[in-house]
């Protein structure tokens, strides 16, 4: 049966069902127990599963990341919550030099089935050190999968698949999505990693949008439809491995493309997507240069108006689509 859930509820349901099905799934993180997580995602899980499997940790990002790695190496399936994606900078050595490399470095003799969940993105007035979208850093690391769902349904199915994946997954949850609602099947289900989804079909222009940019792209598409412009919205959902085929198929169809992502524009996820288009035969289908809409080249500012200006908004997507149509 399918019913409406918020994105946060969908993540929680995935955690609960994974823990019910597999006693090896344990949760680690700062304030995930009694407090329920900084964004309330793990609310109620301590009560249901107890402190043995829902572990409130000290503020020790390096240790708890390594803790998840060691547990994963020896038979558990830990899910680590890193309270804000900005704090992942404190996890880097363990995540990038250990988790990502162990399987390869050990000649395939070990696996690290861990999930690192983390809320990302601007829009909450949390300013420069609590608003980052750093997913591109991890897309650059062979050995990490990077998943960034944009809907409650995707969040649940992709999280269940990530937990069962034998390899480390960085699972990016945009903070502004937590309260968004949508249909979510009640039973456990997995959505395959590495598979994009066309969120809206269209014929005039392709908008490839990631994570929190997907709802903005869809809202822009609604507005443009009123002007008679048919926009196709593609959500990669997994950033590494990236489903290039689905993106290229859409570009071949529409001949115009806007790539929208919240991380800093330079060398962001959209840079890779644009490069893959340029490297492929889809290039010959382009009727206009690719437009990239990324985050501004500055830290996320505190002031509401400045913060809005630092990140692509619905209006920016509308303008960008008009730009590629006019070219």
């Amino acid at each position, binding site marked *: 049966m399918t019913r409406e859930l918020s994105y946060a509820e969908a993540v929680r349901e995935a955690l609960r069902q994974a823990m019910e099905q597999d006693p*090896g799934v*344990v949760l680690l993180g700062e304030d995930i127990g009694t407090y329920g997580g900084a964004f309330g995602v793990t609310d109620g899980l301590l009560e249901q599963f107890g402190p*043995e*499997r829902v*572990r409130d*940790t*000290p503020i*020790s990002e*390096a*240790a*708890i*990341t*390594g*803790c*998840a*790695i*060691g*547990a*994963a*190496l*020896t*038979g*558990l399936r*830990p899910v680590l919550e890193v309270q804000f994606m900005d704090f992942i900078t404190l996890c880097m*050595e*363990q995540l990038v*030099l*250990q988790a990502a490399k*162990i*399987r*390869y*470095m*050990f*000649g*395939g*003799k*070990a696996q690290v089935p861990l999930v690192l969940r983390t809320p990302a993105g601007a829009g909450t007035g949390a300013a420069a050190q609590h608003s980052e979208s750093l997913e591109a850093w991890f897309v650059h690391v*062979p*050995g*990490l*999968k*990077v998943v960034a769902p944009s809907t409650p349904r995707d969040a649940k199915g992709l999280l269940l698949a990530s937990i069962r994946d*034998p*390899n480390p997954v960085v699972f990016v949850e945009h903070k502004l999505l937590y309260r968004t609602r949508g249909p979510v099947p009640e039973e456990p289900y997995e959505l395959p990693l590495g598979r994009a989804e066309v969120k809206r079909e269209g014929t005039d222009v392709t908008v490839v949008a990631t994570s929190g940019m997907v709802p903005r792209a869809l809202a822009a598409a609604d507005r443009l439809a009123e002007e008679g412009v048919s926009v196709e919205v593609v959500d990669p959902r997994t950033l*590494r*491995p990236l489903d290039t085929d689905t993106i290229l198929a859409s570009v071949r169809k529409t001949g115009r493309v806007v790539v929208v992502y919240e991380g800093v524009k330079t060398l962001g996820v959209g840079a890779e997507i644009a490069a893959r288009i340029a490297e492929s035969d889809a290039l010959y289908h382009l009727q206009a240069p690719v437009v990239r809409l990324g985050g501004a080249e500055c830290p996320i500012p505190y002031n509401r108006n400045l913060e809005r200006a630092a990140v692509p908004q619905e209006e920016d997507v509308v303008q960008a689509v008009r730009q590629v149509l006019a070219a």
Partner: protein
Amino acid sequence: MKTASLPTERLRAMLATMLLIRAFEEKAEELYGLGRVHGTMHLSIGQEAVAVGVCEALRPDDYILSTHRGHGHCLAKGADVRRMMAEFLGKETGYCRGRGGSMHIADVEGGNLGANGIVGGGLPIATGVGLSIQVRGSGQVCVAFFGDGAANEGAFHESVNLASIWDLPVVFVCENNQYAMSMPVRQSMRVERVSDRACAYGIPGRTVDGMDVLAVFEAASEAVERARAGGGPTLLECVTYRYRGHSKSDRQRYRTREEVARWRAQDPIERLRRLLEEQGLVQPGEFDALAAAAREQVEEAVRFAEASPEPDPSTLLEDVYA
């Protein structure tokens, strides 16, 4: 130095393992000097008593996390010297199929979850192994080896704290070999002993003579039993010395020949040999035979490794999943 009422066979086995580690590393050094090794290595010659004394206190199904100076840990945990040598020479038959090399040798099946190229890198991982043991209720123990240099990493403090608050079955073994590359331990910390730091985490801390394999074994056994019984972690400092430089680039400007000679007079293999000979547990001439057997085992490993195939470049992307 006491034999701690250990059976003779066990004492001889400890001597044999120390000899094997010494022979392996002397051969590694020789092969390196002959230009037959591509890459770097860190030798633990002089520190064999720590690896052997600690691993002797473990069960086969217990775990260790090793360091960049990890050949001794790996052999003491029971690894196959042939597959180790093959890894050192970058061969397909090595423990990591030639992908890891000296700094990343792991014998996962044997409970060695890997040497580590990052100082202190194994410490956070050890807490997770401890967590897993605790959740699974498997009764195993995890030993995390690290050096005096790692004791100044943030990861050390975070990890010991985490293990202590959760009573994890982890034994933190500091091999204090006096230098973090060139930095003397006296200049890198104000406490007298690394083990003094244990009180900051509310756990037992102990310092032992790391050149005395039986003292190490006795202290490690106590810590391992405590961890296995649910008593939580211990910080065990073994005071030892590396005879060779940090790595091959080391011109050893930070210490004197006299200092090295003073430590070599405490050689852990010689000390055990004297003890066993004095007590009549090793007969005259037997030691030389044991040493020769260790060297022959290593020679056989070299023959195996050199006859083994190189990894095929077409397999470059095997075990890449993303």
